[in-house]
């Protein structure tokens, strides 16, 4: 099983790569369309700014490559910004178009929730993930199948996704008054807002089960 981590020149790819190595995968980092299309599975990681990421993805001619790979039906994993990039658009520093593979938008976490209740952004820390009625069954056949409901995962973000089609929601998370989608499963696409590679031993299980 050959995994390619897409490098669009913005990220610390080390931890994602290492998580793949720990589960015994043959993994490399590449920005070359040919490598990506030939891979058995692809990861789109990401920390950083949405706009810069899209600029780099276009510059490296990766937009079509990512879409073509996803059409092949092989496993695709988006993490953090790599999840957000799959959406139609983002309101990060203005409005920007994303890859439009999953319909919906990327919103900023409000700095105030309720009457004058301050919320810290970026949101950095551990929080729990859980399913809803619709996603309960999807969960048990997904990369989360060995993860308990309400398990803690590590989050670090200022934006969150709002899918138009609620059926793609795999997991939810609540930060103060904001309940948002923290995991996506749509056909061969799996994506998480949190960082499984930074979520201790439970997180490593997710990498393992993503490919099993």
């Amino acid at each position, binding site marked *: 099983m050959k995994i390619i981590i897409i490098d669009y020149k*913005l*990220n*610390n790819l*080390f*931890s994602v790569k*290492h*998580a793949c190595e*720990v589960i015994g995968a043959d993994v490399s980092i590449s920005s070359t369309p040919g490598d990506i299309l030939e891979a058995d599975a692809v990861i789109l990681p990401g*920390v*950083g*700014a949405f706009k*810069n990421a899209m600029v780099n993805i276009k510059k490296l001619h990766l937009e079509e490559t990512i879409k073509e790979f996803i059409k092949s039906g092989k496993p695709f994993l988006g993490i953090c*910004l790599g999840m957000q990039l799959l959406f139609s658009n983002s309101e990060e520093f203005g409005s920007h178009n994303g890859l439009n593979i999953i319909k919906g938008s990327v919103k900023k976490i409000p*700095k105030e929730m309720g009457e004058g209740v*301050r*919320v*810290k*952004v*970026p949101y*950095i*820390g*551990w*929080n*729990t993930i859980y399913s809803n009625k619709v996603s309960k069954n999807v969960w048990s056949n997904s990369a989360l199948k060995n993860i308990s409901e309400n398990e*803690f995962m*590590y989050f*670090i*973000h*200022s934006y969150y996704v709002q899918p138009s089609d609620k059926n793609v929601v795999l997991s939810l998370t*609540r*930060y*103060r008054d904001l309940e948002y989608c923290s995991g996506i499963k749509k056909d061969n696409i799996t994506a998480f807002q949190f*960082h499984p*590679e*930074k*979520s*201790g*031993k*439970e*997180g*490593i299980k997710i990498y393992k089960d993503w490919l099993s």
Partner: protein
Amino acid sequence: MDKVIRVIPKLEIKGPNLIKGIHLEGLRVLGDPQSFAKHYYEDGADELIYMDIVASLYNRNTLHGLVERTANEIFIPLTVSGGIRTVSDIQKALHSGADKVGLNTGAIRNPLIIKKAAQAFGSSTITVSIEVVRQTNGQYLAYTDNGREYTGVEVVSWAKRSENLGAGEILLTSIDKDGTGSGFDIELIREVSNAVNIPVIASGGAGKVEDIVDVIKETQADGIALASILHYGFFSKCRYTYTPSEGNIDFLRSDERFLLVKPLSIKKIKDYLVKLGITCRLR
């Protein structure tokens, strides 16, 4: 959930050694940083901080090898601090396996580095580390070069400015309290955590579990950086077997104990916090 308090071991490093001082001085060699890091990962740490304490002084940045080796065996976020001055320094740290970088001396000398770095790597990657000495008139001022250099920079306004420039988090250390085990500087941490809208990590002074409870209950801190209270626990198990390639081994080989803190494991600290209704990640 509402706030989940992060418990973050802070490992100060000089050369190949984990060290600890009092008020950032009188440094004692405690052991191999990587062994401590691994131990803390297994014990339930939520993140780790590596701080190269002489990097700014010697203009060097030597943690990369250690960061790389550590990132190979721990799967929690790692912040690397000390001697980071340029975008290229940040890039190197991230490439070695750091998830966040801490800027102190570099940022006070050149605040725009915060902005540049946040634009390049995202705010969430940039922690501004503020080391503080309370003046006799009660004013809090930031110091650089591991507490050696007076800057005259007032702490609350510096914290706000850091936030406006794009910092994603503040690591706030009281030099007066550091290593003393006499409790956090609650007033300092309250002032800064009320003034900014980004996470604040409280550091310096934890000597017993009640100190940790106090700072969580009385301030808006989001995380707690711990050193002596954790280090001296694991230290007692490995002090006689560690032989450093450089540095003073007198304290390691003596039977002297460090009496200013009551050493505790992370698990015990978290169990205690959870009993008091404070939310932590338990594993």
